[in-house]
């Protein structure tokens, strides 16, 4: 492994003589540089999308877990039994992590936005609220409703998750799309660099012929191409990544303060992914070109 890394470093330094013998090949060079750059740029976007969507999904998911309540409206006398029945039902329902009866202060806090702080909660015939925490897998809402109706007629499941769940799903989906896009971009980059390398090799068939004629070994010829494409992919992708990162920083940072959607930018560890992009591109270029070069050379006399 260390040898391989050293080999790569060696590659990037270059070898004046071997590099001169393969012509500069202007357009495949530009093409490779540009492809690597554009792909890296798009990767930054896709990565940001995935990471942001992932964070969003996680945050929403965790908020979701606390947004179902069971409301028990019953005559004072039955309140205690029905509450106990509800808690028992909830305890035995798969997908429910916990249930907790809200105390008077909490109930008052919930009502505050509507009635102001002075509402006499104790003196009102208000229902009792049970906060339900679900597990990641979630529970079967309709089944729970049926059971509650049977066990505690005054209990109503108020599933606030219903309208938030699609949000979580959407965020999850965004993340999926982002990863899919990254995979696609990586595959396209590999394919395009392979094809560009093969185009360069094909365009230089005569050069290769001359080099073989004067006694050049395959590795000598292959190395000139591999070195070139690896370096181009590395620098192109580095430029693209930097451009993408700058773009991300320049995007107006909206919604930041609410903390609810920290935004599409990278936060914390997200940035750590960026240097991987050019390195991956260089690795892809290295192997793709090497394979292409040795294959083309193997077919010659």
């Amino acid at each position, binding site marked *: 492994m260390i040898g391989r890394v050293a080999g790569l470093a060696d590659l990037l330094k270059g070898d004046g*003589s*071997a590099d*001169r*013998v393969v*012509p*500069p090949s202007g357009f495949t060079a530009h093409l490779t540089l540009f492809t690597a750059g554009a792909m890296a740029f798009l990767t930054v976007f896709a990565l940001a999308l995935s990471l942001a969507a992932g964070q969003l999904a996680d945050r929403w998911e965790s908020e979701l877990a606390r947004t179902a309540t069971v409301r028990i409206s019953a005559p004072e006398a039955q309140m205690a039994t029905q509450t106990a029945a509800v808690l028992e039902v909830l305890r035995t329902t798969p997908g429910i992590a916990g249930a907790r009866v809200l105390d008077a202060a909490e109930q008052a806090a919930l009502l505050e936005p509507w009635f102001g702080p002075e509402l006499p909660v104790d003196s009102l015939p208000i229902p009792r609220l049970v906060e339900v925490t679900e597990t990641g897998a979630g529970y079967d809402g309709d089944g729970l409703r049926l059971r509650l109706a049977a066990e505690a007629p005054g209990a109503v499941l108020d599933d606030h998750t219903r309208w938030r769940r699609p949000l979580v799903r959407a965020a999850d989906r965004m993340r999926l799309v982002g990863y899919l896009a990254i995979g696609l971009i990586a595959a396209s980059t590999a394919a395009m660099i392979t094809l560009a390398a093969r185009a360069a090799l094909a365009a230089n068939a*005569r*050069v290769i*012929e*001359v*080099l*073989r*004629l*004067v*006694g*050049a*070994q*395959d590795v*000598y010829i292959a190395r000139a191409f591999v070195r070139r494409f690896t370096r181009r992919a590395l620098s192109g992708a580095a430029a693209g990544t930097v451009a993408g990162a700058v773009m991300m920083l320049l995007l107006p940072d909206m919604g930041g303060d609410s903390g609810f959607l920290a935004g599409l930018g990278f936060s914390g560890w997200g940035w750590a992914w960026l240097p991987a992009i050019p390195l991956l591109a260089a690795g892809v270029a290295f192997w793709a070109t090497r394979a292409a070069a040795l294959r083309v*050379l*193997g077919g010659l*006399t």
Partner: protein
Amino acid sequence: MIELDEAAYSYNSDDLLAGMTLQLAPGSFHFLTGPSGAGKTTFLKLCYMELMPTRGAVRVFGTDVRAMSRDAVALNRRRIGIVHQDCQFLDHLSVAENVALPLAVSGRDPSSEAGNIDELMAWVGLDGRRGARPPELSGGERQRAALARAVVLSPDVILADEPTGNIDWDMAQRLLRLLVELNRMGKTVLVATHDLNLIRAAKAQVAARVLRIRDRRLQSAGADL
């Protein structure tokens, strides 16, 4: 140095060359002649391992070419100077760089041998065109540059395919003298040419053997030369 043992070659189904037996002894001088399309270039390609015999054996520096790896072929080619009929060059390098190419390719530093290159360029009469690109050379200039490139590594064997095809008689005689000079230095020389005058002129200077391809076979040319 190079030995053919009942070697045959065919591009398609029919044999182009058959039953070729020859030993190129060190220090010998051979001409190869025959009509256009007879297989002179093909014969040379067998000698420099671009083609493998379809039957029989070709041994280069004692090794059967079929037993050689691609790298061994490359290394052995450095001991053979080849003047290709089409004078292939790298068009993006200068003529001097092209002449020095075998040095670069074999891992030697061309800049340390710049003096040799200059001498070589003068020897073939190209000192004024050192920085030109190959497409800027005239046909004859290209052939002389090809000869310079063929000898830059001091090879043991020199194979030249129509080295005088594009040059006038004076220049052809000069080129011939260069080849004779190389032969006197102990190098094995094989020249494929259709120019019988050149062969006649050579016979006055060197004990050359003349081979002819006729009816797909290698013959010694008779007294008509």
